[in-house]
């Protein structure tokens, strides 16, 4: 599924090309496709194996990290292969289904990880974390929720969080004499202000669907509080028909009807970064997006960022809503699990790699590299490092927001099962194109509860 899961700027979601290689009818034959077995065929030699996402800067950070690890641990080497985001999601699923998964399985936690755990494909790390509290406490505590399935921890959260924030173009705000909105009513008023000035109020890559989902994540929270989605997540019957949920769905369609989103948003994809381009080419004033976009914009339009034209703010409060304005949504971290099908030796190497503070998966060099690239690292106690960073304003804003958030809603399509997530994205697409009503949306989604 597509999800705001990859903090890789620039190239995040271009995997669709590789998907074309999959003949639509070949479903049954796919289980025979796993090439890189637990032994780690291909991509260099190593006793343990890992698959990772391609795309800079993270591919280089991972490459350097693995090179340092292999140099320091010649007896416990790890081989790493890189795949494009969407291609990876299909490939890892197929490989796990065929019992050919790499030693270290990278995921985004939540529903997908739960499906791996239910099939007995990933190792239970609860006891290991109990014996290694240092490792467990090296990352922010809020990240463990999405790694936990029925009270057991199946993954090591690390790397970066993807927090969803509002970005805005300061130049355009100045032009119409506006301030960042603190309430949803102000946001609605801004829509009219920008429209009157001939500027598109909000950029949205609607074809990618998970981009539109981010709006619902926040509106559900601000209107009904985190309990609304929690009930959905828990599989409560009729949870999507909660009156607050319907109110949030209605608010979404009202915003579409008011022309809040740029013309043609239905056909814009996030893969091409066209939504970001709309913001920094002064065509749109605001955009709700993941924190990885910051480094992407910095990369594509360095002058725009260094000139102080990029601003950001938290999703505003909704009048009379129950959600705390400090609540956030996004992906709490990246999740590394260990394949239950790997040999004992491979599992031990992976655990050593997780725990090592010199050259391991989340050592200081890696943390520094993430901060330097403008990403929101989830290591605990790195306030000083962030304060010294070139991007301290943005990173500090995000890090504090995550640390102080009363509730961190995981991206819905990651939190839910793949089957529910696909139904959700499909219905969101129809909601935003106004082809179904909020009631129909709730009805369609209620039918998926428990699937």
């Amino acid at each position: 599924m597509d999800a705001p899961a990859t903090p890789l700027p620039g190239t995040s979601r271009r995997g669709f090309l590789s998907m074309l290689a999959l003949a639509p009818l070949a479903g049954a034959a796919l289980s025979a496709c796993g090439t890189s077995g637990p032994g780690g065929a291909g991509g260099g030699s190593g006793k343990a194996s890992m698959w990772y996402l391609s795309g800079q800067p993270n591919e280089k950070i991972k490459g350097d990290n693995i090179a340092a690890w292999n140099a320091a641990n010649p007896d416990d080497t790890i081989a790493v292969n890189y795949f494009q985001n969407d291609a990876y999601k299909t490939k890892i699923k197929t490989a796990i289904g065929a019992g050919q998964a790499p030693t270290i399985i990278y995921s985004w936690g939540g529903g997908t990880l739960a499906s791996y755990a239910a099939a007995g494909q990933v190792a239970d790390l609860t006891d290991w974390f109990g014996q290694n509290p240092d490792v467990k406490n090296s990352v922010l505590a809020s990240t463990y929720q999405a790694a936990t399935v029925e009270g057991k921890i199946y993954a090591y959260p690390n790397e970066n969080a993807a927090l969803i924030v509002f970005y805005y173009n300061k130049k355009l705000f100045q032009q119409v004499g506006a301030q960042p909105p603190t309430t949803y009513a102000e946001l609605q008023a801004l829509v009219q202000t920008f429209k009157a000035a001939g500027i598109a109020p909000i950029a949205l890559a609607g074809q990618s669907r998970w981009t539109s989902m981010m709006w619902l994540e926040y509106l559900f929270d601000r209107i009904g509080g985190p309990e609304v989605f929690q009930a959905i997540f828990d599989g409560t019957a009729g949870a999507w028909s909660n009156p607050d949920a319907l109110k949030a769905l209605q608010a979404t369609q009202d915003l579409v009807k008011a022309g809040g989103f740029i013309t043609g948003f239905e056909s814009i994809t996030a893969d091409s970064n066209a939504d970001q381009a709309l913001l920094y080419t002064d065509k749109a004033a605001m955009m709700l997006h993941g924190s990885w976009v910051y480094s992407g914009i910095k990369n594509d339009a360095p002058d725009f960022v260094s000139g102080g034209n990029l601003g950001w703010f938290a999703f505003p409060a909704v009048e009379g809503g129950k959600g705390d304005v400090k609540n956030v949504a996004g992906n709490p971290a990246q999740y590394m699990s260990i394949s239950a099908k790997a040999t004992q030796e491979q599992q031990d190497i992976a655990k050593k790699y997780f725990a090592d503070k010199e050259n391991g998966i989340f050592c200081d060099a890696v943390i520094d590299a993430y901060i330097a690239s403008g990403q929101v690292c989830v290591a605990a106690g790195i306030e000083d490092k962030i304060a010294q960073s070139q991007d301290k304003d943005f990173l500090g804003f995000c890090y504090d927001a995550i640390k102080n958030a009363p509730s961190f809603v995981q991206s819905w399509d990651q939190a839910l099962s793949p089957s529910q997530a696909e139904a959700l994205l499909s219905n969101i697409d129809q909601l935003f194109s106004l082809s179904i009503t909020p009631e129909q949306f709730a009805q369609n989604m209620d039918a998926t509860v428990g699937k």
Partner: protein
Amino acid sequence: MALPALLFFAFFGGVPLVGVVLLSFTQWDGIGAISWLGIGNWTSVLADPVMWKAMGLTFGIMVFSWAVQTPLALLLGVFTAGTQKYRAFLAVLYFLPLLMSAAAISIAFKALLDPNFGLAATLGIPILVQNWLGSPTLVLFVVIFVLSWMYVPFHSLIYQGGARQIPKTMYEAASIDGAGTVRQFFSITLPQLKHTIITSSTLMVVGSMTTFDLIWILTAGGPGNATRVLAVDMYLRGFRANEMGPASVIAVLIVLIGLLLAQLLQRLGGKDKTSSQMEGM
């Protein structure tokens, strides 16, 4: 002689086909165990309005693409069958889209049609600044247009070959009888191309059943479900929702309908397919 090819087909065509039929009666998320379900997938898919909408769209695109592509390809093919130098030059231009992959074509059209950064917006042609791919009504026509742009050259090539096989003597005889170009086209070229038309139409109709790559990149089935044709529906169910059972049901439906349509079209050619159409030759 045919044995290697048969084995090859049995392994890469037959085995997956049987596998898909079996999977359509099971519940499988692609990761865990496969469990037998019986006809549950079939009843749920056949009762699903999303599938029926996809079916309608698929047939809509099939009929419209055929209606657009066949006359264009026929005329272009017959035109380029002539031996004049300028026709050979134009033929090269017409066949350019054949050199590009569906992915390249879709990405190019997506960029050109973008309402904010596309061709029309950049050149400032207001009439062309439409929400081409974002409006549920416009998008269908855009998809049919791009599909036609991509496939007309291929079918022109088939017609070109067919037209070149028509003996010159027939035209010579016709012109002695006083038939003009138009009369020659309808009385000689068209009837002589009957089997070529059937071949080309079969390819179009069966090809439309499985159209995936172009639509997937252009619209991913959206906006809403406006371009969610059967193949896209199958992909989303199988590889996004991890519901291999229902996806296999749709795959089987595509195969069955495709085979049926191909058979029907072949019947149109008449029973005595092998008999000569060239009376007196």
